[in-house]
């Protein structure tokens, strides 16, 4: 069920430059940002290069490549991550399809030294707000 909420309903917004949406924790508990091992975003069928995504949490911005050492910076379940993509959308131009896959390391499920990395995909259609 949490996988259906990965993209927060109605959270797509068109900015001056680019667009944002709210990414919600697909697991029941808080995890450090280091556990966010991958994020793939497609908008209207087109892949957004992962290195261009900007993630904002608690007023700080990160690139995916910054996250690996952040094992003491916590992503709490109630706090969405604001994801910014360099894709200009016009507000009021109808529905867009957002297709998001998160790869999340589950740090306490470790088999023979290898942690479980869960992949959760969520696809939603919504209009962009300004």
């Amino acid at each position, binding site marked *: *069920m949490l996988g259906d*909420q990965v993209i927060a309903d109605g959270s797509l917004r068109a900015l001056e430059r680019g667009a944002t949406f709210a990414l919600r924790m697909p697991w*029941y*508990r808080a995890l450090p940002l280091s556990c966010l091992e991958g994020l793939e975003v497609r908008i209207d069928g087109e892949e957004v290069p992962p290195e261009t995504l900007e993630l904002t949490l608690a007023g700080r911005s990160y690139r995916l490549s910054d996250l690996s*050492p952040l094992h003491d910076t916590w992503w*709490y*379940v109630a706090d969405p991550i604001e994801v910014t993509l360099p894709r200009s959308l016009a507000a009021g131009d109808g529905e867009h399809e957002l297709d998001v896959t998160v790869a999340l390391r589950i740090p*306490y499920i470790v088999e023979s*030294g290898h*942690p479980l990395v869960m992949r959760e995909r969520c696809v939603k259609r919504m209009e962009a707000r300004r």
Partner: protein
Amino acid sequence: MTATPEGPPKLGTTLFSLTLEMRRPDYSLERMIRRVAELDLGPGLEIVGFQSIRDWPRLSDRFVADFRALLDECELVPTAMSMNLDLALRRDRRLTEEEALSYLEAQMEAAHALGFAIGKSAILSTRSFVEGLARIAERLEMRFGVEVHSPESVDSPHVLELRELFEAVDCPLLGFVPDFSASMRSIPPMLVEAHRASGMPPALIELVSEVWESDSSMPEKFARFAEESERLGATPGERGKLNMVLTMHGRMDPRRWEELLPRVVHVHGKFYGIDERGEEPSIDYPTIVDVLVRGGYSGFISSEWEGHAYTDAVSGWEMCRLHHDLLQRLIVEAQERLVRAR
């Protein structure tokens, strides 16, 4: 009237049952706790530290004082703090044994500050780790339990290893938390319905049910399911979901919990659904409650509804209320049987 002077098992709720409710925008931990009291889902309250407490296990003095005052006001008892041993906290390497022990120690201290009597987590099964854990439990005067959750059972290799270690270290504060996922009588009907509704091929659902009900060992079940599901053309996604059905629901005889009872520090009343007759169709609660009452277990049973992983169409609050009604009825019946037998 009961087997022990301490009385029969006591009821409680883990906030994990309300995983979907607590994600709503109007959620606050205080409101959740007040609701537990309003619906009479106590007196025991269990929480998952990393789920319900921001910055866990770092707590401000203000948070600790407010939490304790709220539980007093609501007349709730903090039972078990559910903790995690994040061995893969770092991306580059696993925690060392020393780091792992410190990681749990910080959580035990936080649980202690909040008034919890029991900590619960997975652990490393080495003698030195268990000895370290015993020292922490003794210093804080808390008990500590390792959950016995499917696919583990009372005699799976990992649990046997821990049982031997607990005896060898000889610390009465260390024990287990039975979770009834390990002793189910069927795959939960609501889970089968959820898979059907999501378009899972009926032949695969039939296969997993048949494999689940067979008497072979866990590794044999996984092997048979992998082989036959491939023949039926299952996709990797479908196989992954149905493998979880085998992993998450064990078929141990519920009477076997009895042999673990002397080491039981807390109980997880796992359930998936309550039918129109007030019964849990996939878990033999009458037998389980009988084992607990006859065995003199007088600790807490936390109602733990896991159905939220498969549906958001029902209320976790309502489910816990029905589960409490079931437990209350079964405890009275088990006590009456005990009196008649004397």
